[in-house]
């Protein structure tokens, strides 16, 4: 009963706290759908503008030969308005009149091609603002020109009786990747990108949410220290370990609520943000231009064992982060002190471990550096994820157990400090101490 009463107290105090309610629970639910909605609207508008807008190009054909005329005709075929210019002209004045790009064919253009030399063409794009609509317009012009060049190539090849398609691409490669002992019919870049985004992205985001909850757990102790309510709790007939346990439990519950809220918010964001992506990509590909966005790659199917180990790994990392937060709360003098310390204590080890594990093989590092990394508890967490993603489940469980051991050590230190008078007398702070007068 006393334990339930304490948990109720912890949960009510934490959940009713505006900063926690807004920051952990409501913010992901509101922020992600809002960003997704805005993103979706922007995409829709950009696609609409790209579809409707007629492009006007200014062309100065100094060559006047067969091939420059051929290219101009090909450009015109794409519903482009071409204004032919004679003599020199001021670019700024042209662009002020709404010209999207200015193209100049030099005098020897056709002559060079006939002589088998590369011919030059000068293109000046009009970029008014660095916005998505500008990118689409540039992409469209660039696509039209590329197709006109392709048509010229085909014409030349035909004139000379050459199989252009064969010459430009005499070898067809079918890319496959052996990953985690399984052959996948995708190029390796797609596989690696997918794993980086799906396997590392989610835990990193989860850790950021949990990192915030570590701040909450540290703050909850800091608040009680500052308000001296902790002193009352310590004189009541309940063990200090129970007090510590309820604080851990309440923080874990808040973390799970935060993760759930994050998941829902992020899901809505993905649906809203990527629902309009297709139309934009279609527009981009129709114009044959540059890819404005990389296509989203569907997640690799993970089997149930991998998912269970992954979830266990993330949960242990959550406990680890929480235990660091509790430890900081015990060490710190007050709320400000705990908030300052907790960021340094969690994110400083978390990010080097993430980047080093994701981009290099830690085992190949020089001994002192690899030892240092092994002493960082988050290294084992990210290694475990790495192992899961390559199907090395036993090694993943071992790495998770090491993370669990670190968690246990932090919890034991916290419990030891919590059960002694250091809980009241310790006043670690990043602030400069004021002289007591």
């Amino acid at each position, binding site marked *: 009963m006393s334990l339930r009463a304490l948990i109720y107290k912890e949960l009510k105090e934490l959940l009713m706290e505006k900063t926690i309610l807004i920051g952990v629970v409501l913010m992901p639910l509101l922020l992600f759908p809002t960003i997704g909605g805005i993103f979706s609207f922007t995409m829709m508008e950009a696609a609409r503008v790209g579809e409707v807008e007629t492009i006007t190009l200014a062309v100065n054909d100094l060559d006047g030969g067969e091939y420059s005329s051929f290219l101009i005709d090909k450009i015109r075929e794409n519903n482009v308005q071409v204004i032919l210019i004679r003599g020199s002209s001021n670019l700024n004045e042209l662009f002020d009149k709404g010209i999207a790009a200015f193209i100049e064919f030099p005098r020897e253009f056709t002559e060079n091609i006939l002589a088998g030399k590369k011919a030059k063409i000068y293109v000046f794009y009009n970029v008014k603002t660095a916005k998505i609509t500008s990118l689409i317009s540039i992409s469209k012009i660039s696509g039209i020109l590329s197709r006109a060049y392709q048509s010229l190539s085909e014409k030349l090849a035909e004139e000379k009786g050459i199989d252009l398609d064969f010459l430009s691409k005499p070898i067809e490669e079918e890319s496959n990747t052996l990953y985690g002992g399984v052959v996948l019919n995708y190029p390796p870049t797609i596989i690696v990108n997918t794993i980086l985004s799906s396997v590392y992205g989610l835990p990193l985001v989860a850790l950021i949410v949990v990192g915030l909850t570590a701040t909450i757990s540290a703050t909850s102790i800091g608040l009680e220290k500052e308000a*001296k309510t902790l002193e*009352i709790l310590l*004189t009541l007939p309940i063990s200090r370990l129970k007090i510590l346990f309820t604080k851990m439990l309440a923080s874990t519950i808040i973390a799970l609520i935060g993760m759930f809220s994050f998941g829902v918010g992020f899901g809505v964001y993905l649906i809203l943000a990527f629902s309009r992506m297709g139309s934009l990509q279609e527009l981009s590909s129709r114009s044959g231009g540059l890819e404005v966005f990389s296509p989203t790659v569907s997640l690799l199917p993970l089997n149930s064992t991998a998912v269970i180990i992954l979830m266990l790994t993330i949960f242990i990392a959550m406990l680890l982060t929480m235990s660091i937060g509790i430890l900081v709360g015990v060490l710190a003098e007050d709320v400000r002190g705990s908030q300052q310390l907790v960021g340094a204590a969690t994110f400083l080890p978390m990010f080097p471990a993430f980047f080093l594990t994701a981009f290099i093989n830690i085992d190949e590092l020089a001994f002192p550096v690899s030892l240092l990394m092994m002493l960082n508890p988050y290294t084992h967490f990210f290694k475990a994820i790495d192992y899961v993603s390559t199907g090395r489940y036993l090694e993943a469980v071992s790495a998770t157990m090491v993370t669990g051991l670190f968690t246990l050590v932090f919890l034991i230190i916290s419990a030891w400090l919590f059960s002694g008078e250091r809980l009241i007398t310790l006043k670690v702070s990043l602030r400069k101490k004021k002289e007591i007068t």
Partner: protein
Amino acid sequence: MIAVNAIDLWKKFGKRYVVKRLRFKVEEGEIYGLVGPNGAGKTTTLRILATILKPDKGDAYIFEKSVVKDTKIVRKIISYLPEDVGVYKHLTGREFLKINGLIQGLRDRDLKEAIEYGVEISGLGEFIDAPMGSYSKGMRRRIMVARALMSKSRVLILDEPTSGLDVEHAVYVRRLIKDYVKQMNASCIMSSHNMLEVEYMCDRVALMKDGAIIVEGDPKQIKGEYNAENLEEVFIKVVRK
């Protein structure tokens, strides 16, 4: 019967002793006051008695139970009120009293009676069901004193119970404590800067300076010995000696 018996208590932080050679006894049914300037060692002494801090040397006994070895039993006997204690701002006064009662092991009828008693002595009326974050400083102190008294503890350890309160709230809290001790035949050890308050409330007082007791006794008797009108005058005379 002796409620509190402090025997040669010493406590240091860093190299500095904040409590030294401390010996005193508090009888059952008695209010005992620790008086002195900031840094005299009053709060540290009370924290030792409340089992929050451990003495470096010596021991103190609450109804013959050691505050060092028998902490679990001692915590069932005492009620501690820290100086300037804050509140859980999202809990209502009633919820706070209930949680406190549950942690103290009260159940069913005992719990209900304790909550009703706490509500009554807090004098907060309908505000008892409002979040404590909305309470004024005086109301916060009242609910905290009510918490300390609700479980009918035999020994009260109160650190500056009326500090920072206006006259109305201070008078209310003083009367509450005095009545409680009288009705329950409980014991109370309290600290205060306010020597006039201590003179009014306490049966015996100890004047502290630099971690040690420099004068102890019945306020009237001490005033007589030093030919002083009040305890403040006594304190000045003793310090000058």
